[in-house]
């Protein structure tokens, strides 16, 4: 269970993004990949190359099957093959789409044109002079693709489960327990449809928000001065827009063959931004200040245990799902301050 490492000292440079992390961060504060080796980013890239390959292979396979079907099958069988091919093309299109996303970079902290947290992470004083700094939203990895992904999963799941249900209804001697067996699958399918509709509705109304802060990294006692902008795709009456400074504990553990993750949030402070009605393509914007308490714990990123600070944004629109997103803020140990105060005591 234990993941002990060798004695360490000083800074650790991330092999994926060359970001300097404190020695006790085993996960990079910038790209969130393990700082110990580069194998994960390699497998990450390989995964998407795999998506491309499978997608192209499936499309090619469709052509071969169509050719065979046209030559040797009867009309009824051709219909069945056509249905099968439609599903095949659907999966192939999704694989190609996933491959395209992968080539763009899915990770929120690895998007092109995004500066990411400062390379001077270990020098809080230097980072303070960094000026306005754009944070990457935690949802960036799926903000645009999430609805499509959910619709794909929902169609796939419902296609299978409803086919089973209809087959049971058509059959004359279906036992009652068979319906009991398929009921959870139908419920999960409906849940997926609701999630897909919800994600689509959110994306229909909002573009991803842009959060800028005054420093790249912070130390306990600092004030986070933020500026938030978000473009609306449609007109909306904003009920409220709140920004919370949240400290989140995240732990991962193994339970049997399942990897479970639990989180616990502590809200430190909350600011409500001034909001009004907005026209399409208008920008919802606001700024504020949130103070990291002087006695706050610093960010901690180990492989299975994390303590992170987030600026959590919630935009509430009447009769519409809330837009929620988190922006990670790195809080480093106040090394200089603590040493000075210790010298005084």
């Amino acid at each position, binding site marked *: *269970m*234990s*993941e*002990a*490492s*060798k*004695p*360490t*000292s000083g800074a650790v440079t991330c092999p994926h993004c060359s970001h300097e992390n*404190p*020695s*006790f961060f*085993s996960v990079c504060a910038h790209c969130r990949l393990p700082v110990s080796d580069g194998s994960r980013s390699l497998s990450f890239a390989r995964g998407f190359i795999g998506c491309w390959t499978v997608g192209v292979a499936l499309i090619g396979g469709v052509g071969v099957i169509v050719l065979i079907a046209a030559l040797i099958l009867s009309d009824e069988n051709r219909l069945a093959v056509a249905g099968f091919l439609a599903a095949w093309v659907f999966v192939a299109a999704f694989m190609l789409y996933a491959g395209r996303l992968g080539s763009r970079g899915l990770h929120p902290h690895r998007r092109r044109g995004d500066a990411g947290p400062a390379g001077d992470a270990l020098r809080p004083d230097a980072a303070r002079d960094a000026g306005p700094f754009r944070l990457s939203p935690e949802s960036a990895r799926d903000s645009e693709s999430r609805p499509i992904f959910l619709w794909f999963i929902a169609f796939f799941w419902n296609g299978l489960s409803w086919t089973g249900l209809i087959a049971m209804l058509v059959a004359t001697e279906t036992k009652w327990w068979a319906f009991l067996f398929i009921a959870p699958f139908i419920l999960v399918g409906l849940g997926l449809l609701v999630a897909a509709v919800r994600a689509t509705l959110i994306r229909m109304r909002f573009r991803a928000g842009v959060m800028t802060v005054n420093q790249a990294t912070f130390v*306990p*006692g600092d004030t986070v001065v933020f500026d938030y902008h978000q473009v609306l795709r449609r007109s909306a009456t904003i009920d409220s827009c709140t920004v919370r400074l949240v*400290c989140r*504990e*995240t*732990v*991962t*553990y*193994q339970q049997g063959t399942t990897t479970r993750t*639990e*989180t*616990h949030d*502590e809200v*430190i402070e909350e600011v409500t931004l001034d909001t009004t009605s907005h026209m399409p393509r208008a920008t919802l914007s606001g700024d504020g200040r949130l103070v*990291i*308490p*002087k*006695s*706050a*714990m*610093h960010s*901690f990123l*180990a*492989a*299975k*245990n994390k*303590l992170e600070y987030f600026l959590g944004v919630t935009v509430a629109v009447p009769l519409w799902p809330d837009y929620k997103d988190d922006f990670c803020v790195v809080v*480093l*140990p*106040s*090394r200089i*301050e*603590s*040493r000075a*105060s*210790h010298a005084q*005591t």
Partner: protein
Amino acid sequence: MPRLEIGAVLDGASTAASGVPAFRPGDTVAGTVIVSAMEDVECNGLQIEVGWRTEGRGTRDSVVVDQRTAFRGKLEAGRTLEFPFDAKLPDGPWSYEGKLLRIVWQVEVKASIPWARDESFSASFVVAPAERDDVAGPF
């Protein structure tokens, strides 16, 4: 019955709110490991490690920041040996006690004994700046 009795004394530490020895980030942890042998024991290595580990619901993460072999050889029955040690602490992580996660600093002593169960001892301490003498909670 254990073959060795192992203990450790940390020098010059203040005491945290929890009552355990406390150090500031960047300080040097110094102390003495005391080992008494109940019987003649051949020791393959007496290791002194300073490091941190996580506790709580998550799978354990741990890091050793300083590791040394203090002794290797025969420990005679009735004899008490003292091994001074020191280790410079890094800037973090600070000790922490949250709802799902705890970060615990410790000095761990491990005696490797051939053909027998290894003996070990650990003493925890707090690493925190003056502002966080109470390590409970994120702020």
